[in-house]
């Protein structure tokens, strides 16, 4: 593991309650926090050089009935990347916006709202439709959304006239 990461994680541990950690790459740490700490963690790491929010994404852990929010932040000076993660209740998915810390999160929050149905309180546009015009089903990146069944329901299946079972039928 990168020495900078070691120091950084030690520093973060001294300030916040870390509920899980993983190091998928030499220059990357995945840190899990309680959701009440996320805003202060993000504000803190931003002050420590993690000025860029690369992406906010969501993972549907349907078996645990949880959504996992993943904020990936990057420090352009050190090349270190952090996954700041938290889990929220899947049956009532609500979280507070981080746009006051990373304004660029605005559309990522809309994206997560549209595809997972997570509400971001404080983001005025988060309820608006973004990609999916006239969408009439559950948020499609949820694990219980079956895209194949949706497509079978919505679109016709092609029927073929040619029969290749016998010799000399075609070509």
């Amino acid at each position, binding site marked *: 593991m990168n020495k900078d990461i070691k120091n950084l994680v030690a520093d973060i541990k001294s300030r916040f309650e870390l509920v899980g950690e993983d190091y998928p790459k030499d220059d990357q740490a995945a840190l899990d926090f309680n959701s009440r700490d996320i805003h202060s963690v993000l504000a803190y790491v931003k002050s420590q050089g993690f000025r860029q929010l690369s992406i906010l994404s969501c993972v549907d852990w349907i078996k645990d009935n949880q959504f996992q929010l993943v904020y990936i932040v990057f420090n352009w000076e050190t090349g270190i990347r952090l996954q700041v993660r938290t889990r929220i209740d899947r049956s009532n998915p609500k979280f507070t916006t981080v746009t006051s810390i990373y304004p660029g999160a605005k559309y990522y929050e809309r994206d997560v709202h549209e595809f997972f149905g997570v509400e971001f309180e404080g983001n005025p546009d988060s309820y608006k439709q973004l990609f999916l015009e006239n969408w009439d089903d559950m948020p499609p990146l949820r694990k219980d959304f079956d895209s194949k069944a949706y497509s079978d329901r919505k679109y016709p299946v*092609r029927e*073929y*006239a*040619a029969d*290749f*079972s*016998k*010799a000399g039928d*075609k*070509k």
Partner: protein
Amino acid sequence: MDKKSILAPFKGWKYLFKKPVTVAMDDIFKNPRESQDNYRGFHINDWAKCIGCGTCSEVCPTNAITMVERSDVADEEGSKPERPVIDYGRCCFCALCVDICTSGSLSLTKEYLLNSSDPEDFYYMPTEKGITGKPIKLGYVKDETSDLLDLERKHMEHVGEDERKGSFIEIVRGFSKEQAIAEASRCVACEICTKTCPAHMNIPEYIRSVWNDNLSEGVDYLYKTNPLPSVCGRICTHKCEGACAISQRGDAVAIRWLKRYIVDNVPDDEYEKVVLSQVSKKGDGKVAIVGSGSAGLSAAYYLSTLGYEVDVYERKAQAGGPMRYGAPKYRLPDDITNRDISFIEKLGVKIHTNTDVGKDITMDKLKSTHDAVFIATGYPDTRPLNIPGVDNKDVIMAMPFLADSADFERGSAKMPEIKEKVVVIGSGNVAFDVARTLVRLQNMKYGKSDVMMAALENRQQIPADIEEIEEGTEEGIKFNLACGPQKIVVDEKTGNVKGVEVCECTQLFDENHRFNPQFDFDARQVLEADQVYLAIGQMPDFTYIPDEVQSQMQIERGKIKTNKNGQVAGVPWLFAGGDIIKGMDIINGVANGHDAAIGIDEYLRKNKKKS
């Protein structure tokens, strides 16, 4: 702004006088550019190579490939009569189908232009001719790097020859969990093996169970078609592996060892739950089974799950037939056989050992006390060789020798009389069992071995499994192949065997592939030996069947004629299976036993019970 920069853009005008790099619209169709080598264009499929395994269709990320059964393609072993059809409305030309093709029959061409207003023209079954009908230039073909199959079998630990040749310890150690899962992940689940397996075992399904580490599901699959999985997991002739699609270009999936892995790694109590859960108990009747080899035990198991009362009669002291008295313990330890048989007995099957039908109990008696009789008495006798000197006491038959040796190995008899220098005649699996048993016995008795195998076949023609040849050679067996024994040389004074005189075998099969050995009688030599073992084949013994019953049966070349469920033609209450109707191996017996159980069930449901 300076003048230079105003004029600068006009420098481009010089290209007005240069040859354009673009392709004129007209040329796109009339004079199309040839694509680069390696281009991923339309498919071709070499039907001579294609085995219809459907792996292309399985891997296709766009569901563009459908397998269609062809009426003009023969349904043969090791292949399916199906060929891929490609919907170019879906195909994305990723060539994953080419990279995973088991036989290497699929390739892509450099062809990329096809114009038609009919969408059906883009639904196409590739052959060795291309879609456009123009001469074909190959584009993307698979190479070693792009191959998506795993062609190498996972290594399994074997006991080294030095350690094994002086004892009867089991040679193959069995897969560890990691090895088994890795090996199982090589399977493409094409099901070609299922067709080839005489018992049509659910091979892809139980391999998938191993891969998913769900072994009790695996046991469940095994018992659907085979109640002797522990035995078959060790000594099955594994025809499935010969048919395996992966073996087209690589090592077949180790199907037999995976089966063994399942049974070896499920604890007895869990195992028992699965085995007993298959019982339906609907049948009502009593069935006698003669012989406790694979066919007899298989029939006993399935009849018993159907609810019938089953009596198995075995003339030897222990049940199992060739599993007990044929297969040497270094391939099949006794406790393995015990395990399979104990589960069958748990279902309520009664096995009467030391009961020789025909002597201790007559067939008529069996017929009168049971509703149906199943005979599966196998090929217990060694085929004789008619050359001078074979009646000498030191010319020994394979089957009795193996039985005696098996009794010695399990400690219930003393070591058979073996001498220091021996010749084994024959090169089938039984001959290797004899030779390799002799190596062990000699090493135990003399501390060294001297075993020579002599056979009509040359090295390529040897019918035994390749492992037998390899391991036998490692253990120090010598070979004298392509020779025909002419006489046993006997010392006139002592009456002891001195060797075998052989002459060269110049041809084994004639041009019609018929067995027709030719000899060069001038090329003679004597293979020195103190003992000669005969293992050139086995034959049945039908003397226990009363003459009036035999007269109603049709027996040709040692095989009884039956219908597909083993019902003997002309004798409806009699069913037969195993070596005496077909084949010469355990798995055939298992299959026959299962079929016969179905046949007997049908027969008994139609015919009322006796007592």
